[in-house]
């Protein structure tokens, strides 16, 4: 643990005027409010603030398909009606509308996460923050859930140049499907997502049984939760699982998506976390002491988003913030109480102890299937023991596939499992 973490914080003034359209819940103006609040608490005096470069199309194409990036770049609200096929193909319109300066907005928030990753790689800071980033639903060839470019995937790809293993943690109320899908078949990135699941809640994926496949099997962790989870249940589960994950996986760097729609009272969310509960997760991850990239994400009640990310900036800076919000341009948005903390709602927690216990057990069970990595790199497979790839579907599905054939890694004797381990 370092005595004092160096923090790099990314912000671009142009995000404030980005507007998705009337009645669209995603309001980048919340980033402006967050920045104002951070400044009003003088937190800028404890960190370095950078304006990110606008990510070039070629950088975005490190993950996304070139034709998708190219379309995003040239489409605008006045011409979108001329390209109905492409609009449908890339899932634009509706949830992901085409708006003015949309591509520039993508370049800014993606550039922030990429620059943050680079600063971490070059050891210019210990923690890098990009509240504008965290748009975890975007897929390789399409937009989804208000996300166009997946800055997290781009940032992780950058980190993979310097680190063997990257751990991705997502506490947005929605499943981090875009990031999970991008790395579903590799063990170099472990994705851990805590989210609401069930009742056709968006995006519909993220069951505990989604654990990755092929080389990536057991390297995707999903913690599906029900409505109304409170601070105690959530933080306890979070700490137990994350400790075990870090101990088992031993990543070189952590990426933490802090979607604020998991807070109580969010316009689209359904959890009952207080800001302190949400921030407790951030505090816990910081304590691990690994290089850390922190991003924003969802959050559709602007004032609470600003409060939450300000408190978490304080946490990352080891600064406790008083509850009374100082005067600032946006003070009226926080009235009448003008307090930093928010009350939780009186709603039922549908996550019973037994349910959470079951989920926890399944997750820990899956973690046991991963080889510990003391001095052996996870990817190293000496030729003598190499087991060729196979496609499960080519085999007769009625035939049981035994454990040996599935695993590519060497099993240590003390970790050999008898029988089928697919749970």
């Amino acid at each position, binding site marked *: 643990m370092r005595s004092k973490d160096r923090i790099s914080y990314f*912000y671009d*003034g142009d995000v*404030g*005027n980005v507007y998705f*359209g*009337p009645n669209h819940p995603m*309001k980048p103006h919340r980033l*402006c409010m967050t920045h104002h609040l951070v400044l009003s*608490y*003088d937190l800028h*005096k*404890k960190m370095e*603030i*950078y*304006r990110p470069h606008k990510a070039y199309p070629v950088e975005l194409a490190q993950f996304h398909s070139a034709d998708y990036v190219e379309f995003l770049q040239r489409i605008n609200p006045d011409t979108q009606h001329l390209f109905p096929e492409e609009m449908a193909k890339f899932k634009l319109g*509706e*949830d992901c509308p085409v708006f003015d300066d949309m591509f520039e907005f993508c370049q800014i928030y993606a550039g922030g996460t*990429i*620059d943050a990753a*680079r*600063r971490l790689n*070059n050891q210019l800071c210990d923690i890098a923050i990009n509240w504008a980033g965290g748009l975890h639903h975007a897929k390789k*060839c399409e937009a989804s*859930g208000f996300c166009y470019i997946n800055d997290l*995937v781009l940032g992780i*790809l*950058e980190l*993979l140049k310097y680190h063997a293993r990257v751990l991705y943690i997502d506490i947005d109320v929605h499943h981090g499907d875009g990031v999970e*899908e*991008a*790395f*579903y078949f*590799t063990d170099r*990135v472990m994705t851990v997502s805590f989210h609401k699941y*069930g*009742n056709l809640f*968006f995006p519909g994926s993220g069951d*505990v*049984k989604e654990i990755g496949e092929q080389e990536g099997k057991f390297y995707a962790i999903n913690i599906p939760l*029900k409505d109304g989870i409170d601070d105690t249940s959530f933080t306890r589960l979070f700490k137990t699982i994350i400790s075990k994950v870090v101990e088992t996986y031993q990543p070189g760097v952590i990426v933490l998506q802090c979607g604020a729609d998991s807070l109580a009272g969010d*316009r689209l969310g*359904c959890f009952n976390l207080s800001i302190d509960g949400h921030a407790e997760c951030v505090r816990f991850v910081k304590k691990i002491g690994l290089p850390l990239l922190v991003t924003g994400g969802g959050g559709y009640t*602007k004032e609470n988003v600003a409060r939450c990310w300000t408190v978490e900036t304080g946490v990352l800076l080891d600064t406790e*913030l008083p509850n009374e919000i*100082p*005067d*600032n341009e946006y003070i009226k*948005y926080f*009235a*009448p109480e*003008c307090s930093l903390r928010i009350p939780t709602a009186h709603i*039922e927690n*549908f996550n019973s*102890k037994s*349910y959470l216990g*079951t989920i926890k057990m399944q997750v820990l069970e899956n973690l046991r299937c991963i080889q510990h990595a003391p001095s052996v790199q996870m990817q190293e497979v000496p030729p003598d023991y190499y087991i060729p790839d196979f496609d499960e579907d*080519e085999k*007769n599905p009625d035939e049981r596939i035994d454990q040996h054939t599935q695993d590519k890694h060497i099993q240590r004797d003390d970790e050999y499992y008898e029988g089928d381990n*697919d*749970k």
Partner: protein
Amino acid sequence: MDMKLDLEKFFKNVDIGDESESVDLQKFFKDVDIVDESEFVDFKNVRAGNRCCVGEKHVGISESCVGIEEEKKVIKKRKKESCLPLLDWVKSVAKDPCDPVIGSLPESYKWKAYGSEHVWKQVLMAKEAMSLKVNVDVDPNAKRSIWQKQKMHPDMYDDQSKKSYTRCSQRLIAIEENRSILLSRKPQVVDHAESSSSPVSDEEEDEDYLWCINYRKKRIPLGRFFQAEVPQWAGKTEESESKWLGTPVWPLKETENRTSLIEREPIGKGRQGSCGCQHISSLECVRFHVAEKRTRLKRELGSAFAKWKFDMMGEEVSLRWTKNEEKKFASIIKSNPESSGRCFWDVLVAYFKNKTRAVLVSYYFSVYLFRRRAHQNRADPSNVNSDDDELESTESILCSPNVHLKFTKSF
């Protein structure tokens, strides 16, 4: 024997298998070696329009018999669903294959001679069709088919001790479960059904159900159109670009001329409890302190103030607007609610030709919404809301916080 004649007549009206064929009752009973058909047939339940119960005890063809008289039209549709009773038959065979009532299969070399009116023949045909389907779907060139085809899921190998059948192919059971769960339960599972008071088995069922939904609809696709390209780790060989690391904005450069602050306040200080104003927390008091803070911030931030576009924010933005312009702005929004089908932004952009969209958005958030929120704070502090673009449309927030655009997407 009257019973038998009635049955024959009944079956002749029913379309099972080939349309040209009707069921040969005698042959049917002979095939399954039913010694005493009265044991097999329960006449009490034969009603017009209801389920015929031939074989009801052991299921089989019973449900596909439905369609007497007025429901004949339904027969063709039900043919597609006839694999459900089929599976029930398989279930019953699996439970007790030695039950003499069920009978026995003819020798395998005789199978080809039998038509699909025989239940056991249907089962064999289904099994063959399924194993063919698996092979056909493996097509490396068809991108879409890779992620749409049925794939074995590890969960299918689980020992499902809670289920009653033990000898059927796991694959058939899983398929049947998918169908029966989806048909019997509505997708809108309300949250209170998932409440903590339900026993664990309910939750497991929920999970299974959800798994079915998601397994069928949201399987993670594999391929170059979905995954990121992750190279093998061979140590740090590639240099992370050291050119683009962000442009430093704060702290200011040493060379920049900065007015030093007279007061040095501790970082993270909150709002002071009391100020020297005559009417604390009044509109004027708030405005004064905000303006005071703004001026101080401007001096402190230097060039950063403009870089962060702080000069385009705050209520002071309104200083660049005339009173008439502000009035017009508000009236355009009010007269173009969402319910009218018009978008107020289009009207705003068309009217304020001398102002860029960025300026309009900035005014909207910094002044218009801000003042509306200030008004709410004073008028009705318990009902503040700045996330709805129109005051009128509060329904979506208050009633169903989860209902929004994201849910218009169908899975």
